[in-house]
């Protein structure tokens, strides 16, 4: 918290230092494509676009860009980002995809105005605890990294509606993850998850949940509380049964169950009146069971 206060103070001083001058009015351009150009008119830069610059290090001088709102660092060779980046408190968009990042600044949470944070295709093994301070964040992409776990701070991101943590090594999820109550699109596919937390029911606005290619052997009964869920991807897991509550997913339109060990589905599934598509190849259904499921879901396009 101390760092955050310092950061806000710095920003306030910066704001005062430019008020009453014509600095911003004289800005020829609000976009910079090199860090050298950016620091020449440091207070003018609102968009810092350094994509594909083959950079290995982001200079600390980036901290001079106190008015920057959009930061695009994609496809460089960054292994780490400087702490000074986290003084840019006006930033709403930070994209550091396709780098070699192994860690993030501990003060990342100081970027309290971020609404989009893209960190996909790096080598991150953890997210800093301060991430919980990103209270305005709406979009978070940490896919294709080396995360084995998510810290509990993730559950404090109350405004995140799009979260992609696919293609990591996640073994489990924090119990409070359901605290991400604005979630709409959640992708946790291609991980090592063996269970979903019961608290996932807290995501009362979720539309799409993709947990394909994990090691789930069961689902929490609370999953049935996701009344807004339209897509549920459960393919390529180790499911032997679905909970009865699956039948209460009243908005569900598409259900993928391929490559599991299911022998039957609960009769409650017949309540899924909005289910348009069911794909369930490579399970252990008998022909008799398949016929029964078809009778239960006459309006559903089923692929066994």
């Amino acid at each position, binding site marked *: 918290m101390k760092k955050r206060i310092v950061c806000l103070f710095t920003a306030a001083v910066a704001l005062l230092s430019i008020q009453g001058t014509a600095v911003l009015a*004289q800005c020829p351009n609000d976009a910079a494509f090199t860090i050298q150009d950016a620091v020449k008119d440091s207070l003018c830069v609102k968009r810092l676009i350094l994509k*594909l610059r083959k950079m290995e290090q982001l200079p600390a001088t980036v901290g001079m860009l106190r008015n920057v709102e*959009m930061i695009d660092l994609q496809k460089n060779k960054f292994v780490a980002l400087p702490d000074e980046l986290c003084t840019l408190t006006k930033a709403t968009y930070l994209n550091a995809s396709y780098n070699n990042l192994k860690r993030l600044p501990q003060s990342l949470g100081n970027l309290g105005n971020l609404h989009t944070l893209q960190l996909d295709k790096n080598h991150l093994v953890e997210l800093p605890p301060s991430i919980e301070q990103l209270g305005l964040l709406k*979009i978070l992409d940490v896919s294709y990294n080396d995360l084995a776990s998510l810290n509990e701070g993730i559950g404090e991101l109350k405004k995140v509606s799009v979260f992609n943590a696919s293609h990591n090594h996640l073994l489990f999820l924090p119990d409070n993850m359901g605290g991400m109550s604005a979630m709409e699109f959640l992708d946790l596919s291609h991980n090592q998850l063996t269970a979903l937390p019961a608290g996932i029911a807290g995501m009362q606005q979720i539309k799409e949940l993709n947990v394909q290619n994990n090691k789930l052997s069961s689902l929490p009964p609370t999953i049935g509380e996701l009344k807004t869920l339209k897509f549920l991807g459960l*393919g390529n897991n180790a499911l032997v049964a679905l909970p009865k509550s699956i039948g209460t997913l009243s908005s569900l339109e598409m259900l*993928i169950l391929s490559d599991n060990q299911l022998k039957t589905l609960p009769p409650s599934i017949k309540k899924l009146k909005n289910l*348009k598509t069911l794909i369930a*190849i490579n399970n252990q259904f008998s022909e008799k069971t398949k016929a029964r499921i078809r009778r239960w879901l006459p309006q559903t396009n089923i692929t066994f």
Partner: protein
Amino acid sequence: MRKVLLASGTMMLTATLAMGQNCAIPINHISNFPSVKPSAQPDSLRIPSTHTFQMLVQQGDPYSNPLNGSLGPLFDFTGYVGINGSSTQGYLNINHEGSSVPDAGVSVLDLHFDATDNIWVVTQKTPIDFSPVQGTGRNCSGGLTNWGTSITSEETLPSGDANGDGYQDIGWQVEIDPATRSVIDHDNDGQPDKLWRMGRMSHENIVLASDNKTVYETNDENPGYVFKFVADSAGDLSQGKLYVLRLDDQIGIATTGSWRQVPNVTPTECNNVRSAATSLGATNFNSLEDIEISPLDGMVYFVSKQSSRVYRFRDFGTTVNDVEIFAGNPSQNYEIHYESNGDTLTAYEQWRDGNDNLTFDDLGNLYVIQDGGRNHIWMITPCHTQQNPDVRLFAVTPAGCEPTGMTFSPDYRYMFVSMQHPDASNVTVMKDAAGEYVVFNRESAIVIAHNGFLGDTDSTVVIPEPTRVGGTTSAATRLSIVNVYPNPATTAVNVAISSPSALAAQVKVYSTTGSVVLAKETVLNKGTNEVNLDAGTLAAGMYHIIVTTGEGTLNARFIKQ
């Protein structure tokens, strides 16, 4: 010889391929050239001596309307759309791969060929406003239709559903009318639409078959799948069925496969076609790049960047046959016969990694563009087989760049291609077909043709060989404009001029109507000079700077906001 039923429903006859192919190339055809010498990237463009190029536009060039600013970075798909099929008048659609929602994802150039001067003339530069479709993202490659539109292929970005229509906002094929600079309104409800039924994925490109119904598309992700979309009606790509390719065995072993239908009716289904494809057992080719159809044999060719191979198959509607590797693997060496001072020499050039964009010409020659390796532009003739290779080297590209997005004029006389992210430190000045002195030190879109079809015969000259200083090229050894900044300008504009010696110079600024609006006499010192011009009194718009010295004339442009 056998009859083949293509997915388009048309019957065609195919002779025995490759070995029986007639690979004779007419002397003035775009594909008739001696290979260039293979090498690492120099800081200029190396194309065959039979060909020349003209610079059309570079990053930072102002849009025609000053309020739109200037062309952004990362030129990708470079799609020429001829007006009514014209090869001399049309539009050039340039994708900006770096784009994201706040930026323009596609720029459209209006251009025509001036037969008097034998050069292309760009008359208008306009960004497309994608705000009616919630913006676009990472506009990668794309494709052309047969009815005067182009398609820009979005890669996926993590995106929500801002307008609540059920579709996630980014990750689609988007059809554009370049004439109106707008996205097509497919359902005529007054709001333009993306091509939802083709599915959401990291689209690489798209290719349309001659039936105007069948398209093939790939996704540049892992897993990466080959999709086929068959429209319900010819000429309308908004409705149709989607399929994904499943081979009957492992890649490299399978010679047959089949198409599995992928649900694509509801927004939820369209958002999740990749998940459905996975669950339907689709074959993962890992990070697929371009897919194209040969005009010669009707086979479908596609590349995987991961394996750096070109694959091909023949589509029989519900099944595919003749699945094989057509070219490449990273360690493959190809024999290149290149021209050097009138002699033909031979070198072995490694294919390396990163094969990316594909383009066929009308004779079935396949141009393969690399994003990786040495970033070459290769050409593979239809006579090529893995056992009897016929691979040629069309271009060695400027340092740091990835060539992108090749298309041709309908008469295959002109090739349009971009040089994405060349090194800013490139300094070699080239004289293009229009007589302009250009440097590949920023995003560049160019047109290439046989010498007789573009500019003067002595073009594509590299202006005096630059002096190397400590392994780098010195810009200070020749007369050139190094920079014009800020651009766009508001009150002042500075012209940085590199001079080989002390020179008297006259600097004039012309409006687009040809009036001199500013003039300044100065003396340039040896080295880099800065000339400051007062632009405060100028009206908003584009201006030309002409610097005249005893050693030559320089020109540049800037925009006044």
